[in-house]
């Protein structure tokens, strides 16, 4: 299961970063806490969205969480990485 997840994610990662139509959105810079910190519904707060034309974007997120309370679905927190000692693909 783990090997399959890693392999599949690697394929995805290569595809999205190497594809000729890959264009990380400058106006959606994830490093900018002003974007990361504001409810994204508040479009009035800044140019987090481009005016024209329509565009397609997206992301792939792979994470691992090690937990001292055991493996499996964690009660309460953390969220959204809610599985202890497991990889997640989003």
């Amino acid at each position, binding site marked *: 299961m783990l090997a399959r997840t890693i392999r599949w994610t690697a394929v995805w990662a290569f595809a*999205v970063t190497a594809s000729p139509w*890959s264009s990380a959105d400058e106006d959606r810079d994830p490093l900018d806490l002003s974007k990361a910190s504001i409810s*994204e519904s508040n479009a009035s707060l800044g140019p987090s969205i481009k005016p*024209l034309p329509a*565009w397609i974007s997206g*992301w792939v997120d792979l994470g691992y969480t090690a937990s001292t309370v*055991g493996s499996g679905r*964690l009660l309460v927190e*953390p969220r959204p990485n809610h599985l202890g000692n497991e990889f997640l693909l*989003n």
Partner: protein
Amino acid sequence: MVLDLQHAPDPREDSLGFHAQLFAGSDAWLLAGPGDPTNKDLYFGFVLRQLYVSAHLEILGEGGFDLKVGRTPSYLGYESYQAPMRQLYSMSYQWFYAEDGCDTGTWGTWHANDSWDLTAGIYLGSNTFFELRGDAPCAVVQALRKRDNSGSNYQACTIVFGDQAIGQGNSALLEGKNQVVIEYRHQVPLSEQVSQVLQINVGRSDEVLGNHHGVWYGLLGANQWTATDQFHWQGRYEWFNDNGTRTDFDTDYFAGTIGALWMPRKAMMLRPELRGDIAGVPAFGVLGDPNRKRQQLTAAVDLVFTF
């Protein structure tokens, strides 16, 4: 995985826009609400997390008026469910237990002047996809004061109320009548390199978990220190009190997280974090295991590719 298609209205003239976001993976399973497709595989869900049309209208002054109809993210909270738009891999207690998710409804924002945005909306309950949750629609009002145009220097007060107005997807949160949440958010830059956000959330509910009266409140803070354009240190600290109707445990929680955000390439970022949680009762453990603990330490890392 997320695929996002959008066309934003032009804020300089009367214009229309739309936004559709396909959301797949474990997060999509966790955050699925009424109206969303559901399955038993907790590793894979598939939802339309955003689906709305929007308009900018040059009315009511120079700032104009924005209108949205459909499913959009919450107006509560500084944290986003969207991986490239958040500070750390894990999220706060407030985000999961005291805010709503992506709601279906209609919202209007009046840009009253350069500083003030006033928003009002009505929606079909917390985190639904075009389906009414509870006995009546919910409402949200927000006053937001921008201290400058940076987008990282502002204050916001948001009030949400209604039947089943709050919750992200946990079964215990599906109940509740006459819910009210008041949130105050204060984000100010402490220096050119250090950002800070503080958030207070207070809520109550009737008829949750049978006929119980729910009360919760918490204080959440986060800081980011920008070491270089590619590397940021992150910190988050939180206290959350629940009378047992949000997390299933009547106790106080304290959580502290330190982490980093490194972006070696423009379309790639890495986020390691170390997080400690402490509760007043043995609340931490894994589902199905009766062995519970009062403390929990997690070490997590995630890798995000954007395109």
